[in-house]
């Protein structure tokens, strides 16, 4: 049973396209996140949702729009893709409490050509 699952694992698309990445967790957690890992392996948070409510938005271009239909799902939609959006995107989840760790999905490698 995969705790945090993302689809697709790989995504290759052309500049200007719109694409979505889906994330689901079966851990019963309240909080979900999107992190971006750039080509130098640096990881940075993009968004966080708690019970479908946006609680963290880290200066991300508004071409990126997260959507949480329920607390087990957090999808990431990206409009007008640019070359610089190429990265690995990780979904994660955790209980709404600092005394816990985040559980990560396997990542989605997005390549914009």
């Amino acid at each position, binding site marked *: 049973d995969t705790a945090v699952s993302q689809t697709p694992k790989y995504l290759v698309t052309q500049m200007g396209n719109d694409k979505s990445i889906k994330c689901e967790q079966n851990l019963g957690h309240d909080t979900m996140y999107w992190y971006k890992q750039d080509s130098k392996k640096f990881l940075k*948070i993009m968004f966080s949702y708690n019970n479908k409510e946006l609680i963290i938005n880290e200066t991300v271009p508004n071409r990126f729009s997260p959507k949480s239909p329920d607390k087990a799902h957090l999808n990431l939609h990206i409009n007008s893709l640019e070359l610089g959006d190429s990265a690995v995107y990780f979904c994660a989840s955790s209980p709404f409490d*600092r*005394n816990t*760790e985040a559980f990560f999905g396997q990542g989605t490698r997005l390549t914009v050509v």
Partner: protein
Amino acid sequence: AQSVTQPDIHITVSEGASLELRCNYSYGATPYLFWYVQSPGQGLQLLLKYFSGDTLVQGIKGFEAEFKRSQSSFNLRKPSVHWSDAAEYFCAVVASGTASKLTFGTGTRLQVTL
């Protein structure tokens, strides 16, 4: 603002040798600290965490880390490295606030020679 520094970008050790990966943090309050490992093409797996209490914490795969408040450090150690330990290792701190927003270091790539 909180930050995490991993001064070693790349470390190479021989199989069976001991390992220490360095991590320094900057955070105003009591930090919650983590080490994650990322194998090639894989997601992030938690190795260990420190929230409070005993400053020497044990993790999975034979790893341990020691929290030293005076040095603002949380170094990761393993007494005998296996070839399968080759991976990218990330130290992270939870920032203040009500959500577990992780701030990561830049990572250390571990190469293991046979």
